[in-house]
């Protein structure tokens, strides 16, 4: 198809008109329940998702990251504190923030192509431009041959790529992704990192990416936000300062990468240990898995 081949050659910025937003999370807390049933999940959390940067948030499993994302998406309201998008408070879901939630949510009753076009169609913006963009994105995520397949006919990795495309077509000011590659095998995960970082490098849209995987965080991040255990708040922010484009082949051998990784790991260890002494099984597993990994590497 003429559009697709033409699209691949043209610079992406012309296709994806990026207007990047900025989100400020200001002293946000969130509790569920009241009285003796009150459960504090987020407590006094402040950070900024900076314009044109890929900010990665990493924290122990169960610390409250997905809860934060629901707040950012506008599906829930903070108990106290404010969330500002480009200076305006967030009051509900909106197309300016596109959120890809942890659970895979491609509509099983639509083909890949219809899923990708859903956003523009729902908003009544399905013009030729949107269709061209869909073709372009199908190529970009390598699903052109699967455009008329249903999600259940795609592999896990393909589903995630389709979901990325479905989000990107809307040109959101901020893209928010909650562990989008969770549950993929190591090989497809690495492939996805490359896909995803290439997509980011072409557009430099504001991206917020949540994960529990330190290698993933490191490879993708411009800025790394490390979260404390539940009730969660920001433990540290690290400017990664590793130039782009990044290539997996030599990334993890670089000195800077290792330096950041060590700093991040020791902070995460501390957080995990805290709740381990509190008796959390999840945290114990978390520590174990990292201990095992670093042994293997040594």
């Amino acid at each position, binding site marked *: 198809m003429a559009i697709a081949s033409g699209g691949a050659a043209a610079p992406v910025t012309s296709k994806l008109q990026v207007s990047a937003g900025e989100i400020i999370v200001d002293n946000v807390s969130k509790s569920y329940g009241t009285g003796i049933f009150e459960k504090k999940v987020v407590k006094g959390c402040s950070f900024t998702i900076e314009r044109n940067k890929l900010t990665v948030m990493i924290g122990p499993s169960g610390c409250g990251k997905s809860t934060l994302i629901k707040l950012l998406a506008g599906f829930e309201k903070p108990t106290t504190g404010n969330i500002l998008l480009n200076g305006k408070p967030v009051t509900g879901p909106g197309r300016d923030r596109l959120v890809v*939630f942890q659970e895979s949510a491609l509509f099983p009753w639509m083909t890949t192509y219809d899923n990708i076009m859903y956003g523009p169609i*729902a908003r009544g913006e399905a013009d030729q431009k949107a269709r061209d963009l869909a073709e372009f994105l199908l190529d970009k995520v390598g699903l052109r041959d699967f455009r008329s397949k249903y999600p259940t006919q795609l592999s896990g990795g393909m589903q995630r790529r389709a979901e990325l495309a479905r989000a990107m077509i809307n040109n959101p000011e901020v893209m928010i992704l909650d562990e989008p590659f969770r549950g993929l095998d190591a*090989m497809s995960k690495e492939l996805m990192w490359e896909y995803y970082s290439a997509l980011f490098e072409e557009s430099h849209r504001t991206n917020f990416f949540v994960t529990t995987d330190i290698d993933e965080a490191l490879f993708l991040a411009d800025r790394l936000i490390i979260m404390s255990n539940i009730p969660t708040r920001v433990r540290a922010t690290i400017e990664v300062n590793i130039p782009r484009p990044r290539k997996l082949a030599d990334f993890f051998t670089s000195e800077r990468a290792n330096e950041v990784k060590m700093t991040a790991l020791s902070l995460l260890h501390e957080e995990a240990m805290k709740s381990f002494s509190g008796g959390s099984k999840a945290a114990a597993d978390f520590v174990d898995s990292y201990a095992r990994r670093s042994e293997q590497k040594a």
Partner: protein
Amino acid sequence: MEQVEQLLKRTLPFQVVSPETLGNIAGISQRETFSEGDVIYSAGQSANDVYVLASGRLHHAITPQVNAKIHEKSLNAGDVFGWAAIFEGERIRLADVSCTEPVEVLRIDGTKLLDLLRRDRNFGDAAMRSFSQLISQQYYLPPSVANRVPSTLAAPATTAEEPGEPAAQMASTWTLTMYRAGEWIRSPDPYLMMIGFMLLLGSWYLTVEVFKLPRFEDLPGLTTVVTEWFATDPMYGLSIHTSEYYQHVWVSIRRVAIAFLLATALGVPLGLFLGWSRTFREYVFPVFELLRPIPILAWVPLAIIMFTGSETPVIFLTFLASFFATALNTMLGVESIDESYTRAAYCLGANRWQVFREVIIPGAMPYVFTGLQISVGVAWFSLVAGEMVSGQYGLGYVINTSYTMVRYPTIIIGMVTLGIVGYATSAMVRVAGNYMMQWRLREMALGGR
């Protein structure tokens, strides 16, 4: 083996196949090494194996006789070559391949590979298509060459790209159906089914006509019923050769059809709204739950008082049970929809009404169709109850009057006919449902059905 699978998974054609097929392909792959300068094959030789380059570099030169846009190319780890081994018809090498470095390759027998891909019902054709794509895009060969890779299910494929797709898909649906039918015949299922029928009929025949067991001897026997049913001049007035028989069948089917359509038209929307709107549910559901457990027979007097004539009360009774089944299943369907779908739709800019139309309705469909199948079943059930009490034609009426008039074989004819017609209508609903929900069917196919 693990390593082989990982390597295969990185190549374009094998990326898409199911894990099982991938494992099988790994099973028929052989590792081989070559030294610098070795020639793996040359143009004109016969082509038996497909290769995947595991490490090192190769020089791939397509013979000038073939019309390629670019003839020479160097291959790196992960590249697939030797695809002439899966061509349809003559399999002759089209290129010279030599090693510019020491290399390691995986060698895969072409015929066996085709066989494995054919067996992968879900992704085999995608893998085949990737091969054609690979040939045209990475080796710059014209479609006449790329199209020589067969497509798995449909016989000769159109360039499996854009137009022509529906035709190809229809062909593959047809072949798939035929394939499944073939599988079924080859499986033990049909024979087990026959044994089941033979056991039923055999014990009927034996107990009634051969051994004449105490309470059984008054029952109509198998041979009596069959003779009566197919008689041109039936003793009790009802057989496949009498027009009354068809009139009864027709009247019953018409009543069920009207009741079923009404129940669907009212029950599905009611169920959707019950599931979707909290407030609506709070008003309506308690009433609904109170009426639902009342047996159909208990409604008979009211139905006769409320409706005039003989037709409407029967239709009302038939409608009632279907309606409850449909509405309840639809409501459960709406509740079963994962919240992540509605969340995603809102994120993508849909409004509440769009979410209802584009997420709630299709998401509830699998349950709706289960509900409809149940609903036809209970429609027949309550139809007979209604026809026994009121009404002038229909299979329930036949059974009831045959009893009072001591035409015992006709009772059985009515019963068996009910069974057959009831089964046929359920099957029709099921087929229609599956046809309308292809995605659901695929999901079940992948779930190992």
